[in-house]
């Protein structure tokens, strides 16, 4: 199963961190720092796989991919295939790209909840549920459409109640 998904920039600031097993905030930060220190010490043109046992404990591997200013990091155990996870990162990024038309770091900062929605469509409770980026896009679009609709409906009673209280 997938243990954690992280996105961090090249300065080590995390942009997205999702852990599928509960960890305290301090522990999360420690892991993120640990991962970053390993990542930034790696040269270009080496493999995308890291043995993460010293950071995450027994039976854990780490796959990362570097895009422009961001590192995408997946941590998982032996039940996943490294190359497949590498492609999962690719799917994730492709989906983000479709969603934001040329995604950039700022998109991730400002659309934090949407990123989570996308990730939730792909990885659910530590298992990969969906790997087709068009399917993910469909689901995400539908969600945002419905959300917008329900928001429009709920606007009226809210403003009414606002009036009453005044």
């Amino acid at each position, binding site marked *: 199963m997938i243990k954690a998904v992280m996105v961090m920039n090249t300065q080590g600031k995390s942009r997205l961190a999702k852990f599928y097993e509960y960890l305290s905030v301090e522990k999360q930060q420690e892991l993120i720092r640990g991962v970053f220190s390993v990542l930034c010490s790696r040269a270009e043109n080496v*493999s995308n796989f890291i043995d993460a046992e010293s950071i995450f404990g027994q039976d854990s591997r780490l796959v990362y991919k570097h895009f422009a200013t961001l590192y995408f990091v997946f941590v998982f155990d032996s039940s996943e*295939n490294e190359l497949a996870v590498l492609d999962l990162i690719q799917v994730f990024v492709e989906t983000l790209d479709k969603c934001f038309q040329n995604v950039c770091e700022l998109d991730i900062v400002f659309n934090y909840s949407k990123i989570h929605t996308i990730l939730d469509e792909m990885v659910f409770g530590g298992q*990969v549920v969906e790997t087709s980026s068009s399917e993910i896009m469909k689901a995400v679009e539908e969600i945002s459409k419905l959300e917008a609709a329900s928001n429009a409906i709920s606007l009226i009673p809210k403003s009414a109640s606002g009036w009453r209280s005044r």
Partner: protein
Amino acid sequence: MKEYIIRLVYVEMLGHDASFGYIHAVKMIHDDSLLVKRTGYLAVTLFLNEDHDLIILIVNTIQKDLKSDNYLVVCAALNAVCKLINEETIPAVLPQIVELLAHPKEAVRKKAIMALHRFYQKSPSSVSHLVSNFRKRLCDNDPGVMGATLCPLFDLITNDVNSYKDLVISFVSILKQVAERRLPKAYDYHQMPAPFIQIKLLKILALLGSSDKQASENMYTVVGDIFRKCDSSSNIGNAVLYECICCVSSIYPNPKLLESAADAISRFLKSDSHNLKYMGIDALGRLIKISPEIAEQHQLAVIDCLEDPDDTLKRKTFELLYKMTKSTNVEVIVDRMIDYMNSINDNHYKTEIASRCVELAEQFAPSNQWFIQTMNKVFEHAGDLVNIKVAHNLMRLIAEGFGEDDDTADSQLRSSAVESYLHILGEPKLPSVFLQVICWVLGEYGTADGKYSASYITGKLCDVAEAYSNDETVKAYAVTALMKIYAFEIAAGRKVDMLPECHSLMEEFLASHSTDLQQRAYELQAVIGLDAHAVESILPSDASCEDIEVDKALSFLNDYIQEAIEKGAQPYIPESERTGMLNISNFRNQDHHEASSHGLRFEAYELPKQTVQARIPPASLASTELVPVPEPMYPRESYQTTTVPSVSSDAASTELKLRLDGVQKRWGRQTHFPSTSTSNSTSLKTVNGITQVDGSNTANSRTRETYDSRKQVEISPEKQKLAASLFGGPSKTEKKSATGHKSSKPSSHMVKSHAPKSSMEVASEKTSVQQPPDLLDFGEPTVKSTAPSLDPFKDLEGLLEPTTQVSSAVNHSSTAAVTKSPDIMGLYTETTAGAHHKDSDILSGLSNPPMTNMVGGTTTMQVAQSSKGPNLKDSLEKDALVRQMGVTPSSQNPNLFKDILG
């Protein structure tokens, strides 16, 4: 509000405390607006864990939302269910989730399955009756749901293979359909049909087919199909290929599939991408279990990976080497491992690799000498990280020899160990564990062969104790070693004169804060005062391997106990019996009550048992073992009970627990120090002098077995074959394997060229005695180079006390000879001359001692490589071709982040 919460999540991700806002997130999930509700759920899943206090407020909402007719609400609730429901609350939501399995929306079905899977992970018993649902969902119309079902099934099958054998047919047919592109186009990824589902299925098939011929036979066709169809130019295609290899290596072997797997591996290893090399090495490690001969084709690639700057790849390669270690190549591999171990700082990995070195060395060591030297290296570099057991094993090995009835070999081994340790002691900082071994060996065998005077050894030991004055254990070992040496001296009838520094050391220890040290010092003093006969019975020379019988029942104390009991002391009550009784006594004595009962007790207090005062006859009690024996209760005076062991000391009425600890510790020491008696009373000493702990004895016999089996392996024809192939010579198989094997020994001696004269002496003596003919043999293919290396040996033969100069000369010439040999061999197999130069470059670059050893050994990987002419050439050519084409499979999406790159 929604924005605030999202900011809050973000803030917490950056590592700040956001706990003040948790309650707002909880409030948000009660909201009617879908957007707010979903945000609330998101925040809650990120903030809280399943045991958080606020979960109670959420469960009800989740229940309500699972029934909602808006599927998005249901999805959000399912999301929360995965993360936040713990074992106790599973029953509250379980029925609703089971209903959702039939939901019209496939997204909901998918998530419901995953939620059930999550429950299964958390508490398998809670959903055990629902397993059939997973099977049903496998036939779902939607491929997404089917794919998701594979996740829980994979887990289920991992835990219990046999009850799912019937599914093999359906998995195979699904895989077939997927491979034949029957799925919707949306699941294609880089022109591969649903690769993620294929991977999952292959994983499952690998589990189901392992060592099951019948099930495996069903799979052969479809796996073969996938092998053919896979497009190895894309990343995902390779992922599927890799999974196929894993599957093939796990199911019942099929020669045809193995062949295509080997093909795929060689493609991986030859690729330029580090990722693929990594996968190739990993796959090779799997396949090697089934067909070890595959490795030979890829030796060059493996060596390349070992030289690679990529750390991940290097580690994976070491893992592979670890798997393919045999008695023939253990020397090279372990040397490599030690080299690598020295170069890294990561303690976690260092520990791992050190333990692997030790394991390999124990399993495959070609000679005792080599084993001890290897262990020395491991200890020197990673001593603090090695398990203490390893040190004890080493001590035992030195003490026992190798179990052959060859005393001279054993004593040779010991004296060489003593010498190497005396040499190593000169180095500045040594790990504690290693020092303990050194002290023990010096104490036990330092003077055994008469080469070193007692005063020399004791001087060294005093130096150790002074230099590491803050390490109590080392000091204790040193004092005991001193005691042993003096004891041997006395027993041999020589006069003992303590060195002045030894005297001062003793005085210091006599006043030490550590009782252990103090006691050892006093013992030393006492032993020195005794006459020869007494000393010999206390500390017989070379008795560390004799059996010590521990009288666990302490029967020799029976009389004393009986006496004590007759005087009115209480019989011993075992600890297990004591706690309940203490409660009762507390219950009665109000004073003690509050002090000791801290926690709440939920079960009722047990009734105070009728105090069966009928005293069990004291004698029978005393003779029973220390541990079990249900005892009658003695409410009031319980804290005044005597312990059986404590009787030996003084008064019979002291705190029971303390006394027990003390005794146990003394005895625990015995296992470490079989021959040294460290307990106080002389009566005990005599017992210990003759007896030993059983456990170590059985362990001894075990190691003996393993070494015996190793011996057998050594002679196996397999090895001879490999040796021949490594040397590239088609003829003289037997002879060469023999020479190659032996010739590795002198070079390992030469490793110690910077050794002091003393240690050089034996090493060179040995080499000169046995080796020259061997060396000649070894040199046969390379006549030129052996000539210079031979002369110094002859010189050495004449010299009783060779100078370091000569020895270093020997070393130089031998390395020279060795570095030359590949060159000559290169000419021998002229086709690959260029490659050989490269190899010899590597060698000379790394011509530190371990490397020379490597060339000398039978198992020289590199020589092996160079002898495999055509293969190497091929691969080099292909490499060059690939480079020319400029094909780099790194598939970055160039469009991404274009704007941010500017």
